[in-house]
């Protein structure tokens, strides 16, 4: 049983968990809730995006540019699998 290393990183796990509850959230919301620097958040998002777990949507809200993120179907599956594996490991550790 293997733990997905991309998701297992604490900041990335939190990004995935935040997006799991929403349709989409923008960059400002993620930086504000996670208290990460913009560069740091960008780096984590790039990794999640290249793994196919996140979808980036660039748009304009009126005249302001906005970048939103959405968890993909593959990302949702990977996240569910991650928790399943982690719970199994925790349980095997207890017994």
């Amino acid at each position: 049983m293997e733990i997905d290393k991309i998701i297992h990183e604490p900041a990335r796990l939190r990004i995935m968990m935040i997006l799991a509850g929403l349709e989409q959230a923008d960059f400002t919301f993620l930086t504000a809730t996670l208290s990460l620097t913009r560069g740091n958040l960008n780096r984590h998002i790039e990794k999640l995006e290249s793994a196919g777990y996140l979808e980036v949507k660039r748009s304009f809200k009126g005249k302001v540019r906005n970048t939103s993120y959405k968890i993909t179907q593959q990302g949702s599956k990977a996240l569910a699998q991650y928790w399943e594996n982690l719970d199994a490991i925790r349980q095997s550790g207890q017994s």
Partner: protein
Amino acid sequence: MDSKQNNKLQDHKAEKLKEIPKWTRKYAQNRTLTILVLMAMLGLFSMLIAAIVGFLLALAVTGFRKGNIILGCVGAAVLAAVLAALVKFYIYIFAKFGGKNKGLLDQIIDRWIYGQEGFTSMPQTKLTKKRKFLDICLGIVFMVCILGSMQLAMLGYISVKYLLPLMALFVVPFGVYQYFIMRPRFGPVILIFPVLYAIHAILIIAGVPIYFTGTFAVPLNMLLPIIYNLLAFMVGHIYSRYALKKIKSLTHLEGDTANGD
């Protein structure tokens, strides 16, 4: 012993992390101050228009009745100009915020209120043609019921005491239906309005004198649904503050972990 305690702590942390989606959903569903501001803007604008048109109409009618043709003509001319300006204003508003730009005004207000917190969205229910038709029909029925009961109360067919309980017969089911329409964009906070309204109606039937009487009794009693709606959106906003605090506490990372790979 230490390793056991450490394991327990890790388990506890993992369980807490699983709560994040629940709180982000609650936060996004309860960003209701936007609707509150939109309703207040719409209300104030309607009141302003009603006051201006009412004043000018009264001026023109008084002028003609008293034989003061100049006053009557000036009143009528200004009223026509105001109505023309209103039509132009509505065309402008529709061009800017209607059709393809539907929802833009909400977004502007949302950004103004919650801009610092960022943007979140919940999935919207896709409206089928059948569903749209049903919503329009129910909206028309609701408006007919509202205006009908108002008229009946003004003509004295219904006592002011029973106006609210009578209205509860259609306002409460409509409020519950509104919750099902607005789900999952909004959460159960929408149900506060029909619940409070039903309690109010039951209390009146039970003999508690919680209704307006006097000259403006009918319009004032009709205002109650709006007040309960505003209250529900206010409660929603306060709850979103709590949910945001909860998300921040659950997602908080220590300095080194936050800057790690």
